[in-house]
C-alpha cells in the first residue's frame, strides 16, 4: 500500500494498492490548509488507505482521495 504524489511511478514499480497523495514534498498534508483542516485531511487519507488495505484487488489500482474519484489503471 503506497501513498504517493507520483502514482504512475509506484504502479510501475509493482505496487498493487496506490493512493494518490497531495504533493511530492507532503504526500499526506496540505500547507495551504488551516491546522484543523489539515488534521481532517490526514485522517481522511489514512482512513482511505485503510479501506484500500481491506479491499481485494485483482490488478494494480490507483485510488483518489474521494471515493467518487476512484480510478483503476491496468
Amino acid at each position, binding site marked *: 500500500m503506497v501513498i504517493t504524489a*507520483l502514482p504512475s511511478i509506484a504502479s510501475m514499480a509493482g505496487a498493487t494498492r496506490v493512493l494518490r497523495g497531495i504533493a*511530492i514534498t507532503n504526500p499526506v498534508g496540505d500547507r495551504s490548509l488551516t491546522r484543523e483542516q489539515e488534521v481532517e485531511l490526514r485522517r481522511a487519507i489514512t482512513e482511505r488507505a485503510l479501506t484500500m488495505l481491506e479491499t481485494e484487488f485483482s490488478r494494480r489500482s490507483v485510488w483518489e482521495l474521494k471515493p467518487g474519484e476512484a480510478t483503476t489503471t491496468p
Partner: protein
Amino acid sequence: MIEPRIIAATFVLEHVPDLVRYGSKPSRSEEQFATAAGKGRSYDDAVWYPPNQVFIGNLSPDALRDLSRPWWAHPGDAHAVGPSGEIMGQSQFYELLARLDVFELVELGQSAAVGPNDLPLFDAGQQIGVFHGAHEEDESLSARVLLENLACKASGVHALDFLLKQKRIDPEGITYCIGAGEEAVGDRYQRGGGGIGRAIAEACGLEQAGGADVKAFCAGPIHALVAAATLVATSVHRQVAVVAGGSLAKLGMKFLGALQTDAPILEDVLAGMAIVVGHGAPSDPVIRLDAVGFTSPRSGHSQQAVLEELVAEPLRRLGKGLRDVGVYAAELHNPEITEAAGGGDVPDRNYKMLAGLAAVNGDIEREAMTEFAIAHGLPGFSPTQGHIASAVPWVPHALKRFEDGTLERTMLLAKGSLFLGRMTKMWDGASITLEAKNAD
C-alpha cells in the same frame, strides 16, 4: 490560428549540499574542495537566502535592489513554499531520486555496499546510500553520469508536479512535453539521445503526452517555448509543457571563489522548471509568434549583432522600439556567485549592452543608458544552473505582473554557448516576446 499563452510557470530548488562534491569542478579539485568543509549551508540558510526567495516567488526581483550585499548575510523569516515554487531538503530529494529510479540505481540505507563503479551518497556527512553505475565500461552509464541524469529528471518532476497541484491543471490535458535541460541522456551509442521530457511526463501522470527534448545549451528553454507555442497555435496540441531539471555538474562550479571570502558555497541547489503553454485565459500573456528572434550565422561572433537579431529586429516586426518592452529578461545569474569567482555581474553587463543597442539605434539618448538598464532590467537571482538561469525564472513574476495589469510587454532572451561543444564557434540565441491582451 490560436493565440498561444503561457498559463502557468513554476521554479523549484533542491538543497543538496552533499551532492556538491559530485559537481564537475569540486570532483576535479578534490584537495581544494576538502578545505571547503564547513563552507556548506544548512537547509534553513538556503531557504531564507533572498535570491532563493525570489526564485520561488516569495519576493519580487526588485526587492533585491533594496537589499545591501552580501545577500547571504541577511537571515530572515522565510517560507520554503512560495506561490510559484518551493525548496526541497536533501533527505527528501534522495527519497525522490529513489522513487523515480526504475533501474535499481539508487540504494538507500547505511549498509549499502559501495562497489568499484558506484558513488556513495551522503547526508549531513553520513553515508546513507549508494548510487550504482549501470555498466562497467560505458561511460554514459557510469554512476556519475546517471546520477546527473536522474537528478535532472527528479528536479524536473518536482517542478512539474508542483505546477500541476498548485495551478490545478489536469495532467491528462497536457498532450506534449518538451524537455529543455542540458543533460545528455543515452548510452554510448547515442549519447544525448534524449527522452528526459518523456520520463518527467510519465512520472507526473501525463498519460496522454508524447514529447521530445530540445537541446540548445542555455537557450534550450526559449527554443522549447517557441516550439510549444507553435504546436498550440497550429492546434497540433492544446496544452504543451516545457520542463527542465537541474544541472548537477554545475554544483559548486565557482566554489574556489567562495574559498577566498567569508561566503558559504551558494551553488548548493539544483533547480527545476515547468512552464505550460495553452489556450489560457484572456489575462494570460500571449507568446507573439510573429516576433520570435533567432541568431543566424550572419551575426557571426559579434555580441552586438547577436543582440540586434534577438531584440531590435523582432521588435521592428511588431512596429515597436526598444523602449516599448517593459522588462527584458536575459541571463539572470546571481551576481553574488559569479562575482566571487571573477565573472562579474552577468545581468548588469547584459543590460548595459542592451542599453547600448538602444542608444545606437536611436531609441534613447546616450545619457539615458544607465537609467534604461535599470528601468528595463532585472537583478540576477538565479543559481548558476545554465539553461535555467537564462531568462525563464522571470516568467512566474511576469505572469503575476500581467495579472495585476502592471506589465504590457516583456521579452525573454537567451544565449547559448555553442562553441563549448567544439563543433562551431557561433553563439546561439533565441528570444520571445510576451504581451498582454490589450497591449498598445
